[in-house]
């Protein structure tokens, strides 16, 4: 059996902070997952800090672009599924009440939390 000329490829994902999601940043070659983390640190994190870094063997990744039938596409109109598909504000106004958005609720709940601590 022929010995491979290069070490395996690991894809690198980084998470900036606890409440953010890991994002793909690139890949490295390394002899083991631990080494891949070392290499990732050298290659991608010379300046910024990260909350967490994931390395995943390239061979473990299955990509939807290779299976077009499962690739999410949105050919038909889907406004019924989106908040922007509803124009409630004029009706609320007619009833002399304020329209509300989920962002306002989230803001209110977050403000309260800071007040507590």
């Amino acid at each position: 059996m022929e010995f491979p000329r290069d070490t395996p490829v690991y894809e690198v994902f980084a998470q900036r902070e606890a409440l953010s999601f890991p994002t793909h940043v690139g890949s490295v070659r390394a002899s083991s997952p631990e080494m891949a983390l070392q290499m990732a640190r050298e290659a991608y994190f010379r300046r910024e800090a990260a909350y967490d870094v994931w390395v995943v063997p390239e061979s473990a990744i299955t990509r939807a672009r290779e299976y077009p039938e499962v690739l999410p596409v949105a050919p038909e109109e889907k406004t019924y599924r989106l908040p922007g598909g509803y124009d409630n504000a004029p009706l609320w106004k007619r009833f002399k009440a304020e329209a509300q958005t989920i962002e306002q609720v989230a803001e209110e709940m977050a403000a309260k939390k800071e007040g507590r601590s």
Partner: protein
Amino acid sequence: MQSREEAFMARVQSGEKVEVMDWMPDEYRNLLIKQIHMHGISEVMGAYPEREWVMKAPTIRRKLALNAKIQDEIGHGQMLLRLAEDLSQPYGRGREDLMDDVLDGRVKFHNVFHLEAPTWADAGVIGFLVDGGAIITQAMLLGSSYAPYGRMLKRIVAEESFHMQHGESVVLALAAGTPAQKAMLQGAIDRWWPAMMFFFGPREMGASSRRMLDYRIRTMTNEELRQKFINRYAPRIQALGVSIPDPALKQDPATGQWSYTDPDWDWFSYVVHHNAGPRSADRLGLRREAHDGLRWAREASLQAARHFAKEADHGISAGYAGL
């Protein structure tokens, strides 16, 4: 010297986040499992009352929207169950066990999903008030000390934005409609308001809810959440020309606090603990049908996974070489 438990408590109280592989006290793990399991199962069971209205929705657009909302709720159930499964790993319990629990009465789900939804206005008011209440709770949980829960809730809350607008749209259309439509809306508000007062839990929180507050799994009391809800929804319902079935509902102009009539705590809690609501048995029956009816598919899936693992083990090319 500070114990490991005390150090953990100090960490979470200072705002630090916890990940699934971090060391955590058993008590913290068990509270998280209880909370997230119940949340996930409630998402799944919450699809049943609305499912009754997909076939009967008045327009194709309403049908599409309701169907899309149900898909979202089942999706939320799956996201949350994944978190509960990860936490349950030390107990050797996975998806199959966590789903069995609801059928065997080992996990509760929200009181509102045990109730009847007899009219189209009920389908609207579920989106308006039940999703509205759930959004308040979930927005509070965005600040949870358990980071995987906080992250997942970010995704969930983003989708709930459409549920909120959809529910309001149905309710607004009825409020602006014929006398019969207005009466239908009034009937639904009469049915759902007391259930929503129960939804946030007792005025005095139980021991485990108080511990969740200590651990910052949650950041507000039941009463704080209920006040937020009333403050947001009571004026809007009244503006629609619909009355709220509570003569005691009143805001103290000085403190801003709302007084309200207590819901029938004993009855609702009996319903939740014994699955004894008017529609509990029917909906659990449908859940059991789906669970049992699709057992063959889950088993076939397991077989396929075993087969795939074996093939990957030998290397597919080695398999071909043997031909």
